[in-house]
């Protein structure tokens, strides 16, 4: 796998990697692969999810995660076979709120009363912005965790990767401050929001965008870049995911598209390769090749639009067998080779 030496990482100063993108483009997959890639020897990396879907547990094939940091994997190994550790945390707003309240106030019986009156539900699902502050607040705590802090058994992280909400909601999610401004002008939630904002706007954060080479996701990516910049949030790289196999050269693609392939040559090559060949087989392979060439051309158009954003870009192939632990490690190695980690 590591045929090429890994590039020196492009984001050494970043402690918080936020991964967003249009729904279904592979945010969770890329976030997991990035965490594995960042976990080099001696490093601890935390992978967080906030969408309440237990996507991490499904990807790593473990039991649903609690609101608690759990070691779930070794990082992607280096040439000597060594690696760091990846931990995972499933952040749900109810637990984050209760933890937050317990930290700042003594709750006692009131905790249960809050729940009975629907306060927890109100604060975490309906009160706009509050939910997001609670979620990002927990991530903030993990990133800023002081060395030798209060709790001895707490792990310190060299990097935190956040599998964030999709591009459609990312501005609102990260720009928690302005969303809250008109609502909670004072109070602990507000001051928490300010601290989070300082971290998010600093060079210690990078917001990476995952896209596939299709019109809507690419359009959403450039909209998100503009939105993030306007909000003063640091845009990281673009990860182009689910790229089709590059099995044909540009010249071959053109030949297939223009119906200029030499059918006799293909037939004799197939025979030489010990395939039981007839004219129908050759025609079918060429037809499939033509479908592919059409898609590749559309991909190239979108790739040019991605390039026009002038951001560091990384590409990951579509793995035909789907995603499991092994596939995530394979993607992690590819990210390392390209310098995302």
């Amino acid at each position, binding site marked *: 796998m590591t045929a090429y030496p890994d590039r020196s990482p492009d984001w050494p100063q970043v402690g918080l990697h936020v991964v967003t993108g*249009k*729904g*279904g483009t592979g945010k969770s997959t890329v976030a997991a692969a990035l965490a594995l890639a960042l976990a080099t020897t001696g490093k601890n990396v935390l992978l967080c999810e906030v969408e*309440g879907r237990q996507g991490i547990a*499904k990807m790593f094939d473990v039991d649903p995660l609690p609101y608690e940091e759990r070691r779930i994997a070794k990082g992607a190994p280096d040439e000597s076979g060594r690696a760091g550790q990846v931990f995972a945390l499933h952040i749900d707003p109810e637990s984050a709120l209760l933890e937050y*309240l317990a930290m700042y*106030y003594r709750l006692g019986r*009131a905790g249960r009363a*809050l729940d009975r*009156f*629907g*306060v927890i*539900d*109100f*604060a975490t699902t*309906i*009160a*706009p*912005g*509050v939910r997001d502050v609670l979620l990002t607040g927990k991530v903030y705590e993990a990133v800023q965790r002081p060395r030798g802090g209060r709790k001895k058994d707490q792990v310190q992280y060299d990097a935190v990767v956040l599998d964030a909400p*999709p591009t459609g909601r990312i501005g*609102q999610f990260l720009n928690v401050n302005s969303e809250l401004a*008109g*609502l*909670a*002008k*004072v*109070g*602990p*939630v507000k001051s928490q929001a300010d601290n989070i904002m300082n971290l998010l706007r600093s060079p210690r954060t990078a917001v990476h965008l995952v896209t596939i080479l*299709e*019109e*809507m996701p690419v*359009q959403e990516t450039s909209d998100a870049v503009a939105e993030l910049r306007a909000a003063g949030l640091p845009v990281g790289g673009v990860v182009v995911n689910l790229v089709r*196999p590059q*099995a*044909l*050269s540009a010249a*071959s693609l053109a030949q297939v598209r223009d119906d200029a*392939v030499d059918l006799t040559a*293909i037939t004799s*090559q*197939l025979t030489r*390769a*010990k*395939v039981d060949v007839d004219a129908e*087989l050759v025609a*079918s*392979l*060429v*037809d*499939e*090749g033509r*479908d*592919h060439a059409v*898609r590749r051309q*559309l991909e190239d158009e979108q790739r040019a639009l991605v390039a026009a954003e002038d951001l560091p870009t990384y590409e990951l192939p579509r793995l*035909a*067998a*789907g995603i499991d632990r092994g596939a995530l490690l394979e993607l992690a190695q590819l990210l390392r080779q390209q310098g995302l980690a």
Partner: protein
Amino acid sequence: MPVLDVDALLDDRGTEIIVCCGSGGVGKTTTSAALALRAAERGRKVVVLTIDPARRLAQSMGIEKLDNTPRPVAGIEASGDGALDAMMLDMKRTFDEVVESQATPEKAKQILENPFYIALSSSFAGTQEYMAMEKLGQLHREALGQGTYDLIVVDTPPSRSALDFLDAPERLSSFLDGRLIRLLVAPARGPARLMTAGLSVVTNALGKILGGQMLRDVQTFVTALDTLFGSFRQRAEKTFALLQADGTAFIVVAAPEPDALREAAYFVDRLTDDDMPLAGLVINRASPSARTELSAEEAIAAADRLRAQDSSSLTAGLLQLHADRVRIVEREQRLRERFAASHPQVPTTVVPAMAGDVHDLDGLREIGRKLADEE
């Protein structure tokens, strides 16, 4: 697997509402628009309520301007009385209109200017679902009253989970007339006896979490909205009943991916539990099947042999692409079989992935043909 007969569904005059649901990005909007177009061209008077169409699709349907009213779509090749109107949902405007239609002008103004209302109506995660239901209710009343439409096709918001569409309205309306709200309004209404010790603990905690200003905004909002509580709940209940009616058909859209199919399975189960009429499942964006039987293993072995001699061999490239395609199709097939094993009764139709985006009426017609299994 039983087959979903889309044309029979569209031609049945008893079908009055079709709801397309599924998890985000699977093609709900595309499927709704394609079904609506096909129905119109087969003679139905159709309106399609889309939520978040891709820009070019909206342009080609003439609905890129959000004005919250259905507009005729140009370029329909309708037979008989067939016609198609389309609209894109403006959730804030729909919410505003509900408030305006239910409250006195002064009260409406008070509500519409309240900061909490503004945030709630434009960003609460469930508002879009709630307003989609509200708009569906409005269109249905209009269709019944004026005979403008005989079929309403609804797209659903790009939620995290397909179930949000069914749950969010209930959550919002139970919030709007729930205990917490009663509690928040109580001090404004006076009787101090309501303020037991337990209650003040709750308001205090809320104040701490949200800050005093926000709590006051919420209280003002809730007080102003007080008279509307009942009607909010009633409206939500009516629309819910509409969804259970015989004239409604749910179409669950899924991509041949584990997550999307899992969501689809939850949704199918939920529809069954809630007595909602499920028409069937659309598997959208299926990879086109291979055109020859050659196995993936044979193709890879042959490609390796050719590459040993010529690393840039075109034939080897074609073989590799074929192997890739076979593997993907096999994987999708396994996923579909798994779904069918647990839900053998669900009629299904499969729509292949087109080479490019679907962004005009021709593209929608093509999807429509695939949905109906024509050709």
